[in-house]
């Protein structure tokens, strides 16, 4: 009830602001917040069929099956902005979950142990992006005594891997149907895929627009978009989110409005942003005229899904995501993004406890440096503000930015 009330309040507040917004107001971020709050409210309402999932679950397919679903990391990330994560982390730690583990996962275990998570009707785990996430989703299934389906996401991307993953998604449909009594409606799935493709196209265009010099995106406009948008894939809400971002950025590009006035330096942000309120982006913008123009996870790496063969398309999508596969593939994407977005440098927030992204810190740094992209490894915990050392972070950022500012600019990056 507590969580549902929170999401209802957020939704009501954002709806009121949107109702007051004029045609020239920037609303994309509010639309994202509204749809995210609505999803949160449905998850906690007790009246819908709910699945707690791993990050790579096919949320559009689950929508088509009538299941309201979400990856478990959502809980901690959502509460971080309100400062509500600390009690969850403390609850998990008191129960014996190690502080060396990822705080996103500790937060969700704390929420479950504290009775803040609704009992799901089913649980869908995914073996990627990380072993820690898989373990915590399996823990939730055990905690709630809910049916668990595990999707093995192959490391490779060849046709055998696609076929294997597509086959598992078909079996997953049977698993869901057995528990909900609702078979998959082919027409409903086709509609969901069509909406996914529309959202995909609009997101791709939004990211392309964000690469404009100067970028039209303000410092927090695109935070978490690539992670949160897939939760609404397959729905009209998902299309609305993506198209609102696209249209808003397009308008700003047309009108020559810079997201960071006087943009002087352009940055690529790896992995996740810091989820709680921190001075990082403000410092970058106000002191150095630096804009975070690209987020690693704000990418469309997959092709449109053929509604006539959705399982193959969904499998190809999962395998194309930057969170899957060897570091070479990730480096290839990051290097390409650095060129496309004409960045001057990259910031890698080495999220404590992350063996997936942070685990490759040295290799990523070396690979990007080889491509001529300086990297700042910022040792932080993106969710746990208790361990945030503002002074230390500030000092490291300042040194990095001063180094970037003293370098000759990339010709293409000049406005």
């Amino acid at each position, binding site marked *: 009830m507590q969580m549902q009330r929170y999401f209802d309040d957020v939704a009501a507040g954002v709806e009121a602001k949107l109702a007051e917004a004029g045609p020239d107001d920037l609303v994309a971020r509010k639309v994202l917040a509204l749809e995210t709050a609505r999803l949160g409210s449905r998850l906690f309402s007790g009246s819908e069929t709910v699945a707690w999932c791993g990050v790579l679950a096919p949320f559009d397919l689950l929508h088509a099956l009538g299941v309201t679903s979400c990856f478990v990391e959502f809980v901690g990330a959502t509460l971080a902005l309100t400062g509500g994560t600390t009690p969850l982390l403390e609850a998990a730690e008191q129960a014996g979950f190690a502080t060396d583990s990822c705080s996103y996962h500790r937060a969700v275990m704390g929420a479950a142990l504290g009775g803040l998570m609704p009992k799901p009707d089913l649980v869908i785990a995914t073996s990627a992006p990380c072993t820690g996430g898989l373990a915590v989703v399996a823990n939730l299934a055990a905690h709630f005594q809910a049916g*668990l389906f595990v999707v093995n996401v192959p490391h490779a991307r060849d046709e055998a891997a696609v076929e294997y993953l597509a086959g598992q998604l078909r079996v997953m449909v049977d698993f869901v149907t057995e528990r909900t009594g609702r078979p998959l409606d082919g027409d409903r799935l086709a509609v969901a895929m069509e909406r996914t493709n529309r959202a995909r196209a609009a997101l791709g265009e939004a990211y392309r627009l964000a690469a404009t010099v100067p970028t039209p995106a303000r410092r927090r406009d695109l935070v978490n978009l690539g992670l949160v948008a897939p939760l609404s894939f397959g729905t009209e809400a998902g299309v609305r989110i993506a198209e609102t971002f696209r249209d808003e950025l397009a308008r700003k590009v047309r009108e020559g409005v810079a997201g960071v006035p006087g943009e002087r330096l352009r940055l690529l942000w790896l992995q996740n942003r810091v989820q709680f309120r921190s001075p990082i982006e403000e410092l970058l913008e106000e002191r150095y005229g630096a804009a975070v123009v690209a987020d690693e996870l704000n990418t469309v790496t997959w092709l449109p899904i053929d509604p006539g063969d959705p399982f193959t398309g969904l499998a190809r999508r999962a395998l194309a995501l930057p969170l899957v596969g060897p570091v070479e593939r990730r480096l290839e994407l990051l290097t390409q993004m650095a060129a496309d977005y004409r960045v001057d440098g990259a910031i890698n927030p*080495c999220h404590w406890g992350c063996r997936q992204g942070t685990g490759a810190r040295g290799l990523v740094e070396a690979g990007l440096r080889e491509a001529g992209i300086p990297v700042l490894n910022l040792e932080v915990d993106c969710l746990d503000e208790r361990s945030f050392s503002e002074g230390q972070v500030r000092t490291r950022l300042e040194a990095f930015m001063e180094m970037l500012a003293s370098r000759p600019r990339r010709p293409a990056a000049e406005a």
Partner: protein
Amino acid sequence: MSGRVGFACAYAPLPLIHAAGLVPYRILPLGEAPDRAGALLHDSLCPHVKRVLDRVLAQDLPELEGMVLMLSCDAMRRLADAWSTARPGDRLAVVDLPVTDDEGAVERLAAELRRLADRLGQWSGAPRTDADLAASCDLYERLAAGLGRVGERFASGALAGGRAKFQELLNRSVSEPPEATLAEIEGLLAQPETRGAERLGVPILLVGNVLPDPGALALVESCGALVVADDLCSGSRQLAAPCAIGHGDAVTRLARASLRRPRCARTISSAEPGSLAREVVERARAVAARGVVVHVAKFCDPYLARIPALRGALRQAGIPTLVLEGDCSLRSLGQQRTRVAAFVEMLEA
């Protein structure tokens, strides 16, 4: 038998390597290689993987025909990422390892193993046949059974040297030709029993992932414990039998056996996701352990995530538990000697 093929995870298909005429060589996290892996990956990564990578970076490896890396967890995936940077000239085969043991996962792993078999055949110049693989599976089953019998003798005091001596044998069993270890086992089993010569301690079950240093095991037993059984990937889970289960060709049966072997925490039972805790309780009861020592490598997510449930299940079963974290080395365990000794004293009381 010709050259060696390196591996670093207990899920590596040793019979497949052996069937190709190669000797599996486990790169254990032992030795004194300087700590350098953190710079290539990250310091907060599994110490097992970091110490293996430290050995690689220090050139502390024998000559290898190639390296087989099982993608069993994030840390192993990062090791695969780093390997080519650390040893650019190596022949490397990575094997995708499903996290479940259903038939779809078995088929997927079997396909991966067939691909691996082709690579191994290229490395050795001697492609394997189904008959070769069946013979190698049989050999490894005999090896696992022999190790089980020898382990019981060490635990009962019938063989001198305790768990440390047994660990030396376990380490050799994955780094030398299996035929040699089997011959050694036969020799040990033929030795007269020395029952009574060894001081027997308080029976404990040792649970966790990687602890191959004989000195670490000696330290535990020097505190008055007797390791009567283990559930470690450098111990009883290292060479698990059977090597072939169910229907299908030899590779499919090996794949099924690999996924259904005693579980590392990275492998999930969809039907019973919390089964690891139940399995440990059952094992502790089966071997009449008076306590359980859980030794987990720091930063190992699969185990760290299971510790609260494991601790809870053991508490509910009335089995005292000591949880330790370490870096797979004697050094880190040595710092916890007092805790081990206090735990054993509590069990004795």
